């Protein structure tokens, strides 16, 4: 599938519609480069991110999953990111407890004005995941056949 056969990480970024997706758009209009292995899925709010989706991404072959939402206090729905914050903290902690590399999951608050932050975050996250290497601990080999 890849252009070259060398391993490159596959990264899923969930972005809330109001802040981070707009931030990603701004990064685009500003022509701020970040690696192509980041693919964005638009969700209405960071609180829409079900931990199942994170696991699903790993199962299907993602090497890293990142959630971007409005900064705390700026949620379009007032409180969504506060719930997301607790949920993701608990999920990440659980994954860590099972020995899954901590770096594979991340939450970053990116506002609609922070195109540069979005690009920088993605560059940094891709680097982290590249350093961590392929996701082995939470992979489902059936999806790689």
């Amino acid at each position, binding site marked *: 599938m890849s252009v070259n056969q060398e391993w490159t990480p596959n990264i899923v970024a969930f972005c809330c519609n109001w802040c981070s997706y707009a931030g990603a758009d701004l990064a685009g209009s500003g022509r701020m480069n970040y690696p192509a292995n980041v693919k964005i899925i638009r969700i209405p709010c960071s609180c829409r991110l079900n931990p199942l989706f994170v696991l699903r991404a790993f199962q*299907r*072959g993602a090497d890293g999953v990142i959630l971007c939402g409005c900064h705390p206090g700026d949620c379009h729905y007032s409180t969504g990111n506060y719930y997301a914050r607790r949920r993701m903290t608990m999920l990440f902690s659980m994954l860590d407890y099972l020995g899954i590399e901590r770096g594979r999951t991340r939450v970053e608050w990116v506002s609609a004005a922070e195109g540069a932050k979005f690009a920088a975050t993605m560059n940094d996250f891709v680097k982290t995941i590249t350093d961590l290497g392929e996701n082995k601990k939470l992979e*489902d080999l*059936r*999806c790689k*056949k």
Partner: protein
Amino acid sequence: MKKLSLNALNRFFGEIAEKQTLIAPIERAGQVDFGVWSESETVRLDVLKTVKSAKGAFFPQVEDMVRFHMQGKNIEINPSEVMNEDFVIFGVRACDARSFDLLDRVFLSDPVDPFYAARRAHGTVVTLACNEPEETCFCSNFGIDAAEPAGDVSAWIVGEELYLRANTEKGETLIKDLEDAAEDAAEETKKAIRAVTEQLPFASLNLEGFDGEHLMEKFNDPAWAELSRACLGCGTCTFVCPTCQCYDVRDFDSGNGIQRYRCWDSCMFSDFTLMAHGTNRPTQVERFRQRFMHKLVYFPSNNDGLYSCVGCGRCLSKCPQGLNIVKVIKALGGDK
């Protein structure tokens, strides 16, 4: 009869494992189950009952059947290969050994299950007599002699020696290089085992009435409702049972295609044989009844009176809420 010092057992295992896969009761994370032997594993012949029965060697919990590979709008069909290598399963107890006969009746009768048949053909079963039967054992009710287990090879631990007797050609081949021993070397041990077996609390259960003739009577017995009330609907009894043989065929969508596999299923589950209209066993009463009716009535009425229970007692010790087949036999059987 052949013999082998228990001290030399690991060497013997090593020799087997050089040529074929060896499966034995090994301890992992505090539990003993049949698993692939290697030098680093701890074999536990002192443990009478593995958590799961030995049936997994022939009927694994999960088995791939076919893969549908998708490329755009094209589908490629790749059936899974059946077992094509010999293996040995060591340390099977008399009850589990009998369960293979019962499974054979299901999987080897027409239409023959190719996956099971291949594993059976390639497997050599080494059984081991039960030196210390437990209070949960009741195999004698089903004509099983814990002192005389079946299999390709039967084995007895006597003191520090292991005595082995080949019952089949496959067995013969496996142990032919071992030291010869007197044919009656294990007789004392057998006697001791039988003496304990006779004293077991459920040594003689009254199975009267569990047959095809009394099918409707048993089916309609009002006792089922109360018996099943505490049942959690989990699959513990089913999954530790050596004779339960139900499976579900499932499709896993991997994104690139479909992996079709089968896996153990339990009639205790609410979604067992779920159909488009729902289920024909809507409550736990029907599900609970199904499991025991199958073992004690339906199976024997179709299989020359052979019960689909071997008295291993796993369900007795593992049911989280103290429900089990003995309780059912007592509540519905001749002692009722």
